[in-house]
């Protein structure tokens, strides 16, 4: 049986309606060759396909254009047999604009259409009525008022959708969708000033010249803290499960190579990235809640001007913020940026944000080289200042990279100005948010996990052979480390650091574990201070230590990030350029830092 398409303008409550109709049974279906996500779900024995919101058939963004193309294709090949077009009752004119285009297209291919007039509860609250029966007659198609949020009219809508294939095809003609939408809005719509004034009261605070910036800063601080605070117990729990499972499973394998592979490569390697899943969950959930509430659109407005100076968009802010927890969901969040140029620029600089995987490296090297001096009665510590400086340094480099690329390599890439519809403030919906967060985590595990497992296996093989367990110093990996030693000599680093850098391509925090193994300390992650003493004793100078910190702040050593960028762009070219480009930039900046520190006599 043919599927039923769910289509409508952005912010019309279409996704919530889809979730309500399909009972949250949606699955993300990535169609080959396109970047847009089409979600499909079951409503009884019928399949519903949810298309991304579009304003008109002449799409502006890549996602819109692809969505329209896919919609047209599926209508033409009859894989879509009927359409449910969602109208936003609070923005009737803009909804009818796309609604009339959909109706005309459906007529051409003999497809029945039902119009779901959503957000009708808002109208009822404000004692506003729309003559939906008259509108229905005018359109020659069913117009049914609903509220996906309160459930008003949902049962009747479901009944109507069940019989959608028996409905008569509308024979009404609308020559100019824009003009006709205007006429229909004048006839059946209402003055939207009242509703806009209601949301204006909240905007008076959130977009206020003085309080707006303060509220923005407070919300972002709470968001940032929540990601760490809420996720930590779950991360500890996963770490415990992974290490416990490794201990239980290992005895089932014969001692030697296979057991070493299972414990070190499978549990050790893959476990190190699964531990970040809770952070991805909370980040997706909190950002999703802010998005649902309508606040993110306001945050984008506040940030637009300063970010525009560096070639970015106000919409770049959330991905950049998210990147401080993990680059994976942050890169996925760039899909909300309409401008291809600003989206690519954002995607390019997200890996420079100080993600949580950099924390163990920063903690180790700071403890090794920075004395625990405190100021203002212990309130401010030198190590804390260095930590903050590292984050700030990476942000400054990121902004300069964006500004440079914006004016050079990406100068002529197509750009779209910032035009944003202000959605109404709404209460976020808990269940769909949880579902979306779980879906994002699963995407992370399945897509990036495969690449991580492959790299883990490769690193393990290189570190294990030819002499087996405990012989890392005579392994192929050590041989490779010594081979790149001349490259690291200008930074004052020996082969052991070369090996640590090589292995940390998998994930940055592997650096700590590798150094721990090389220095003969077990459980280096849990004993950072002990390892720091060993690093100091190894003769590494302060300037080399700081150079190493600079290197880790910039280098893109994260297989999952590269895999996600490749997936989003559908090409290996840019992730490879980023890997080598940031590697070279990290090396040059680290070298300059070491040279500067060596040349200053008092250091």
């Amino acid at each position, binding site marked *: 049986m043919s599927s039923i398409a769910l289509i409508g303008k952005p912010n019309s409550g279409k996704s919530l309606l889809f979730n309500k109709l399909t009972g949250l049974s949606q699955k993300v279906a990535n169609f080959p060759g396109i970047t847009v996500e089409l979600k499909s779900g079951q409503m009884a024995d019928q399949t519903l396909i949810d298309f991304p919101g579009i*304003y*008109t058939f*002449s799409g*502006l963004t890549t996602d819109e254009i692809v969505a329209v193309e896919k919609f047209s294709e599926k209508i033409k090949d009859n894989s879509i047999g009927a359409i449910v077009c969602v109208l936003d009752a609070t*923005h009737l*004119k*803009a909804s009818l*604009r796309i609604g009339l285009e959909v109706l005309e297209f459906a007529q051409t291919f003999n497809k029945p259409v039902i119009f779901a007039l959503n957000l009708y509860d808002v109208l009822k609250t404000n004692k506003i009525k729309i003559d939906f029966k008259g509108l229905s007659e005018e359109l020659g198609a069913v117009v049914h008022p609903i509220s996906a949020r309160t459930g008003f009219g949902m049962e009747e809508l479901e009944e109507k959708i069940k019989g959608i294939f028996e409905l008569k095809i509308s024979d009404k003609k609308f020559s100019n969708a*824009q003009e006709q939408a*205007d006429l229909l*809005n004048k006839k059946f719509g209402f003055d*939207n*000033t009242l509703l*806009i004034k209601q*949301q*204006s009261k909240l*905007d*008076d605070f959130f*977009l*206020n*010249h*003085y309080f*707006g*910036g303060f509220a*923005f800063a407070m919300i972002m601080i709470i968001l940032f803290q929540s990601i760490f605070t809420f996720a930590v117990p779950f991360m500890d729990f996963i770490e415990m499960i992974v290490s416990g499972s490794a201990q239980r499973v290992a005895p089932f394998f014969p001692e030697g190579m296979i057991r070493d592979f299972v414990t070190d490569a499978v549990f050790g390697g893959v476990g190190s990235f699964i531990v970040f899943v809770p952070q991805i969950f909370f980040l997706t959930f909190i950002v999703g809640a802010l998005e649902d509430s309508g606040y993110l*659109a306001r945050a984008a*407005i*506040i*940030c*637009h*001007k*300063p970010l*525009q100076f560096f070639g970015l968009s*106000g919409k770049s802010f959330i991905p950049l913020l998210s990147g401080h927890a993990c680059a994976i969901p942050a890169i996925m969040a760039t899909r909300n940026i309409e401008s291809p140029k600003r989206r690519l620029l954002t995607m390019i600089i997200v890996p420079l944000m100080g993600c949580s995987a950099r924390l163990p490296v920063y903690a180790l090297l700071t403890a090794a080289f920075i004395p625990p001096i405190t100021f203002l009665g212990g309130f401010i510590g030198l190590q804390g200042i260095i930590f903050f400086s590292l984050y700030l340094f990476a942000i400054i480099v990121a902004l300069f990279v964006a500004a440079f690329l914006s004016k050079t390599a990406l100068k002529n890439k197509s750009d*779209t*100005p*910032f*035009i*944003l*519809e*202000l959605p109404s403030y709404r209460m976020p919906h808990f269940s769909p948010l949880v579902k979306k967060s779980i879906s994002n985590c699963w995407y992370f595990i399945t897509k990036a996990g495969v690449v991580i497992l492959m790299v883990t296996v490769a690193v393990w093989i290189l570190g294990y052979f030819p002499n087996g367990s405990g012989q890392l110093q005579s392994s192929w990996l050590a041989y490779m480390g010594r081979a790149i030693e001349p490259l690291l000599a200008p930074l004052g680093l020996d082969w052991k650091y070369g090996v640590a850098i090589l292995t940390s391509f998998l994930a940055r925090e592997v650096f700590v574990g590798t150094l721990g193994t090389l220095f003969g300390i077990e459980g280096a992650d849990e004993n950072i201070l002990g390892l720091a003493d060993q690093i100091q004793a190894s003769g590494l100078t302060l300037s080399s230590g700081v150079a190493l910190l600079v290197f880790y702040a910039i280098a893109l050593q994260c297989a999952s990030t590269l895999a996600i960028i490749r997936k989003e762009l559908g090409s290996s070219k840019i992730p490879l350029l980023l890997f080598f480009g940031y590697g070279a930039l990290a090396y040059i900046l680290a070298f300059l830092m070491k040279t500067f520190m060596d040349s200053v006599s008092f250091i």
Partner: protein
Amino acid sequence: MTLWDLEINKVCKIKAFLDVKPIIKTRLNDLGFNLNSEIVCLRKSPLGGPKTYQNSSGAFAIEQDVAQNIRIELK
């Protein structure tokens, strides 16, 4: 006078689109910014960012590069 110059709570009518790419003009039209349509400036943004305007389709934030290329007439 351009849309960017419109003061808060003042009403205007769009008279011409100046240096606006056709695709952007189409999008503006889709969002209700048409010739002779009435527009109200709702507010400026903190840090000199996009301004918010209301028309018969809803409320929209538009950045300076676009707004200063829309010629208006006060109502």
